[in-house]
């Protein structure tokens, strides 16, 4: 395809591509992000491809390899149009059945439909799957409509129309539209995006950066967008650059996302080829290009000043703000840093108007937010809901509740900077203000659900270990403080906690918060403070009674085989790496506690629930 020279040319190409998509034909869409591929989506795709060829259907059926549809738990899954039939947890051999029955005869294959694990009720189409019914997939919903490796697909559904509209406006008016939308930064802080753009300082050149260094453990919505719809992010960046007069953009992607890097790299090349990036974009006289910088595995580089240092080829240490990057950013020039989801929201805001976007959500938090709903929850995946949806709706309606009949204990929101909210906060609406008031934060959108087998002291220890590893070491308070807190919590989990340890932890956490410079340090006390506030009893059990109620902390537990449940199958004895399980065949076994390393493999290998933690 040749370069587009005007928005009119773009429009006619969009229309032409729209027609050549053959939407009237039966279409099979395979969800194939990193999660899908690890569960075999590539093999499922290949089986469809071969099946279509064998049946001579190449000109009669569309097959699409798309990014993630969000429902990772049901991978590999496909959606078949017409009818939006949703088939979950497929095997390659199911492809032939679907082609013959659904595509060939228009019949739904009942055994391949998704069944709700709670009610066992089958969902005939995508919209009926409980995971999807309460969602509003404004940003992530387009993944299903396109193959992320083809710019044609994005254009065919009207992609880059937001850019075309922006180019017809005054740059200032574009920013005003974003202000009107109430869009706030989706990366963590929640700073109003339009305001950030308005405050961009004087000087040239100006830069825009996409922060795709999604480092929060448990969060992966940015990966979902970069892999599944990279052009939406690029389009947002071009619009932003036009609005503020930037000429260069940098996409800073973490190296742990190889598929995202591949898809974004290809998308940039395609956009350049069509004149949607580069010199004189769509004949508007506006020029802007994007380069990719790969992260190298440092969590702190998600902080904007550290990220900028890393792009400049240096150690990713944050620096004091102000001056903010909007004044002195990349190479000392005015720079806007927004995250992936924020950029992906921009085209929608501009195309449909700020007011429409602002009509979704709550008073202070507009639009939708994508969460990665993971941990001890039935339906894991990427969930997009309007701001203000309650935690209960997300975890129990969309998420389908807690597996194995266990009880909900907490949900961890906001990554290492966030907090753990207990059951009595389940009716909290999810928006920036409510979460912060409850002692957590929106963060980038990780929602890790925990049940009664999760130890909250262990979770605090986990985050402290994470933070002390990832602290860049610049501020003494963060470097030493996270380490000291880790030592104290570690001591508690070892059963050596002292009566005054909890007070000491509170003091340390507050000190680190007050005396550190960047966001990492300033929030490093949160995991401790929020678990102490909401689960103090669990700490006290560790310190005073030397017990771990959740059965996690190794020094405080032991494994035992229940005599009445053990069938003597010997599976545990065979699996035990220490060979400390003894007993005759078909007779109850026992564990020699003196040699047990509490690895838990016996419990994992027992099919009769005869191994218990005490």
């Amino acid at each position, binding site marked *: 395809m040749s370069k587009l020279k005007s928005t009119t040319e773009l429009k006619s190409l969009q229309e032409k591509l729209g027609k050549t998509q053959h939407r009237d034909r039966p279409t099979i869409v395979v969800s194939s992000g990193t999660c899908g591929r690890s569960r075999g989506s590539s093999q499922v795709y290949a089986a469809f491809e071969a099946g279509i060829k064998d049946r001579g259907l190449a000109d009669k059926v569309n097959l699409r390899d798309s990014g993630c549809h969000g429902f990772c738990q049901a991978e590999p899954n496909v959606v078949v149009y017409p009818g939006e039939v949703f088939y979950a947890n497929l095997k390659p051999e199911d492809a032939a059945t679907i082609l013959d029955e659904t595509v060939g005869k228009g019949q739904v294959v009942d055994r391949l439909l998704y069944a709700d694990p709670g009610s066992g009720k089958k969902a005939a189409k995508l919209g009926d799957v409980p995971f999807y019914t309460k969602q509003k997939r404004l940003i992530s919903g387009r993944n299903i409509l396109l193959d992320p490796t083809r710019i044609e697909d994005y254009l065919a559904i009207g992609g880059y129309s937001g850019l075309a509209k922006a180019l017809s406006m005054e740059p200032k008016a574009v920013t005003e539209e974003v202000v009107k939308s109430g869009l706030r930064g989706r990366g963590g802080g929640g700073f109003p995006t339009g305001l950030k753009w308005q405050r961009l300082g004087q000087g040239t050149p100006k830069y825009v950066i996409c922060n795709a260094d999604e480092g929060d*453990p448990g969060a992966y919505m940015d990966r979902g967008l970069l892999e599944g719809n990279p052009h939406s992010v690029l389009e947002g960046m071009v619009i932003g650059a036009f609005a503020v007069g930037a000429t260069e953009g940098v996409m800073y992607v973490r190296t742990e996302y190889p598929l995202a890097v591949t898809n974004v790299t290809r998308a940039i090349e395609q956009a350049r080829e069509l004149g949607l990036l580069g010199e004189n974009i769509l004949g508007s006289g506006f020029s802007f290009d994007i380069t990719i910088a790969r992260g190298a595995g440092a969590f702190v580089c998600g902080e904007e000043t550290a990220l900028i240092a890393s792009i400049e080829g240096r150690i990713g240490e944050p620096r004091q703000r102000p001056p903010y990057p909007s004044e002195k950013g990349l190479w000392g020039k005015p720079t806007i840093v927004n995250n992936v989801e924020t950029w992906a929201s921009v085209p929608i805001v501009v195309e449909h108007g700020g007011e429409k976007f602002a009509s979704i959500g709550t008073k202070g938090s507009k639009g939708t937010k994508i969460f990665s709903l993971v941990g001890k929850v039935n339906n894991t995946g990427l969930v997009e809901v309007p701001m203000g949806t309650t935690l209960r709706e997300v975890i129990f309606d969309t998420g389908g509740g807690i597996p194995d009949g266990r009880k909900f204990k907490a949900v961890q929101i906001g990554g290492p900077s966030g907090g753990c909210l207990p059951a009595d906060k389940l009716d909290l609406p999810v928006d920036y203000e409510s979460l912060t008031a409850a002692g957590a934060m929106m963060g980038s959108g990780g929602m890790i659900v925990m049940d009664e087998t999760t130890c909250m002291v262990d979770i605090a220890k986990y985050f402290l270990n994470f933070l002390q590893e990832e602290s860049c070491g610049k501020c003494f308070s963060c470097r030493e403080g996270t380490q000291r807190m880790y030592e104290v919590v570690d001591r508690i989990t070892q059963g050596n906690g002292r009566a005054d340890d909890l007070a000491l932890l509170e003091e340390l956490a507050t000190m680190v918060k007050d005396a550190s410079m960047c966001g990492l340090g300033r929030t490093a006390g949160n995991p401790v403070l929020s678990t102490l506030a909401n689960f103090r009893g669990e700490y006290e059990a560790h310190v005073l009674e030397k017990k771990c109620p959740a059965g996690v902390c190794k020094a405080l537990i032991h494994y035992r085989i229940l005599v009445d449940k053990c069938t003597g199958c010997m599976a545990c004895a065979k699996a035990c790496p220490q060979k400390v399980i003894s007993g005759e065949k078909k007779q109850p076994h026992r564990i020699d506690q003196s040699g047990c390393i509490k690895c838990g493999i016996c419990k994992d290998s027992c099919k009769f629930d005869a191994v218990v933690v005490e």
Partner: protein
Amino acid sequence: MDVGKIIDKYGSRRRFLIAILQDIQEQERYLPKEALRQVSLRLGMPLVDVYGVATFYSAFSLEPRGRHEVTVCLGTACHVRGSHRILEEFERQIGVEAGHTTKDGEFTLESVNCLGCCAIGPVVVVDKVYHGEMTSNRVKTLISQCRKAQKVEAS
């Protein structure tokens, strides 16, 4: 080793230090001392600064890597589903702690703070292939598959 070509590709410019190191690591699978010296010389920056960057970022390795690379994700979602126990089992089976390579150069065991595959945790990546919903029972099988693949290649 053609480190020179990599540096040329980036026009010997300091701003591309991280990208240069990434390319060297991709090619050599680690950052050899000699390569760091060459980078320092060609970019006209002190070796200590190159070393500083190479050791700050966890994706870089200053030691040769094993033939098989095993990475265990320790993200929060994986953690609550027992990833620490998976890592311990790998450590037992492979015989080295996370961050190290076996003496025979067969395996490098790493842990990572999040791979972003949280829904299918615990996740382990073996030679770039993702394995979700890992259990400690499956660890042995994965390792023996690697060893077998090695033997087939050798024969």
